[in-house]
């Protein structure tokens, strides 16, 4: 990677010193540009939420404007007679519960697959992974009929159950790769000390995969929080989540840009903070443990 300055004639030394600096500036400049492009839509979202209605529709777009919280106020306390807080509450409840279930059941299964050798082990693991690849839209018809049959349409429980299942395959795969890395000797020692297998799992193995638990929990939460398709089919009003609220946006109404951007901000902001804080095992989680 490094330059071959040492083999170059002395006369080029000054140029060779300037070149790496120029290269650094170019690299940094490109990286800034890329980061900027990543941020522009988020910037537009926030500024639109803070604009007055006339500024939102202004041509040419207004870049310097007096911020107002009118859109936030409208979205949360006035808009359409629907209370965003109910949607927010549903989102938090459903995300929290489904994440807790997925990580608990997933950690158990991952440990079982990582530790106990049995004939169907590898097939079972691949089978579990393969469920992650099925497009959610393929499930909407049967899942709707199933939940309809047991009377769970428009209840939080329906989405909690579906999201638990949706995240399980991912949680199992990622955590399995974490459990495999723990040296078996530790657990054998605990067994000799008289721990039951269940205690070994709870008190020895689980604490050792804490980073994995954190990563899978946060990614599961993000997937549940962001999910739209099944939420729009399984809920109508009482159990509807934030994406369902946002999907009510209609361009023909064309008047509520600011309000929807304001709700969008609340849909995105908590996730952004988590992402910035937890970066360490993100890749491992996102690729099912295949790339670290």
């Amino acid at each position, binding site marked *: *990677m490094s330059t071959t300055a040492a083999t170059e004639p002395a006369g080029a030394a000054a140029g060779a010193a300037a070149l790496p600096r120029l290269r650094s500036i170019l*690299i*940094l400049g490109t*990286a800034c540009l*890329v*980061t900027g492009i*990543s941020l522009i*839509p988020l910037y*537009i*979202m926030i500024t639109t939420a803070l604009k007055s209605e006339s500024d*939102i*529709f*202004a*041509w040419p777009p207004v870049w310097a404007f007096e911020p107002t919280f009118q859109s936030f106020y409208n979205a949360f306390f006035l808009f359409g007679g629907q209370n965003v807080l109910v949607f927010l509450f549903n989102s938090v409840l459903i995300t929290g519960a489904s994440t807790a279930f997925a990580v608990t*059941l997933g950690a*158990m*299964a991952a*440990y*079982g697959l990582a*530790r*106990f050798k*049995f004939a169907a082990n590898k097939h079972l693991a691949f089978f*579990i992974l393969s469920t992650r*690849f*099925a*497009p*959610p*839209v*393929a*499930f*909407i*018809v*049967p899942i709707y*009929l*199933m939940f309809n049959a047991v009377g769970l349409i428009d209840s939080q429980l329906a989405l909690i*159950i579906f999201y638990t*299942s*949706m995240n*399980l*395959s991912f949680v*199992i795969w990622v955590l399995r790769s974490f459990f495999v890395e723990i040296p078996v000797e530790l657990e054998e020692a605990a067994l000799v000390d008289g721990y039951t297998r269940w205690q070994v*799992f709870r008190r020895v193995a689980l604490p050792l995969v804490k980073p994995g638990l954190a990563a899978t929990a946060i990614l599961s939460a993000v997937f549940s929080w*962001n999910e*739209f*398709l099944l939420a729009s089919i399984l809920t109508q009003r009482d159990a509807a989540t934030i994406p369902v609220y*946002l*999907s009510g*946006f209609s361009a023909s109404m064309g008047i509520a840009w600011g309000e929807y951007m304001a709700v*969008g901000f609340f*849909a*995105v902001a908590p*996730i952004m903070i988590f*992402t910035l804080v937890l970066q360490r095992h*993100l*890749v491992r989680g*996102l*690729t099912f443990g*295949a*790339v*670290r």
Partner: protein
Amino acid sequence: MNLHREKRRTAFGLISPAVAVIVAINIFPILFALYISLHFWSFGRGEPRFAGFFNYEELFYDDRFINAILTSGKFVFLAVAIEFLIGFGLAFLFNQKVRGLVTLRKIAILPIMVMPLVAGLVWFYLFNENFGAINWFITILGFDKVAFLTDLDVALWSLVAADVWQWTPFVMLVMFAALQSLPEYVYEAARMDGLDRWQTFWRVTVPMLKPSIMIVVLLRIVDSFKMIELVFMMTKGGPAGRTEVLPWYLYVTGFQSMDLGYAAAMAVVMLIIITLVTQIFVRGLEYREGQE
């Protein structure tokens, strides 16, 4: 012998709850979809009647379905190709040893976690013909406004652009992690063998990255194939079906036309397509593993 049985019981106890959920919420619906697809089945029009393979035959002659398959193929190909090329390049950029890149990288990956529906909302606003920021930029450069979401030839590209914005950072992040995990000594060996940069890239770096490349491309194909949020927010399948991807057509068939049997047949076709694609990649990965 006793110990063996106890071990098996523990394994079963750990794994079975997760498998039960997956079977009930993932596997059963697939079989149920298969069953529904063999029936004339719609909301509020009497009992389902057995239809044999009628729904599947119908798909063959349905121009709208053929169009949806082709549109999906186009969208997936364009999005994944662009995301991969840019993301792969950016991984190398962010892999350089320049101060400040670490922070920029953490910010640049934020789009990955943005709720897709919010991404659709913001890009809908950005692409607006009357007051969108992108058309403003275009007029500044001295060009005419573009009808990004209603022009027959442009609409699909607009969706691709929004998808590229959201998912290029994902490719970058994974490829970056893969690059970081390459051991330094292979580069030393390459240098000692007298390979120049270009040769090192093609004969050392790329072959060693191949498993990661395959995983990231597979995940992007699977995920962009099921994309529905951008269509929902930005085009609703229009103009003239130019952005009607398979998930959207299925959704409309099932929950607007209420033709559940036909929608289920589409779901089954989607599952077959995704299984074939996944198998190709898994075989490729297994083949490589077998060689090592």
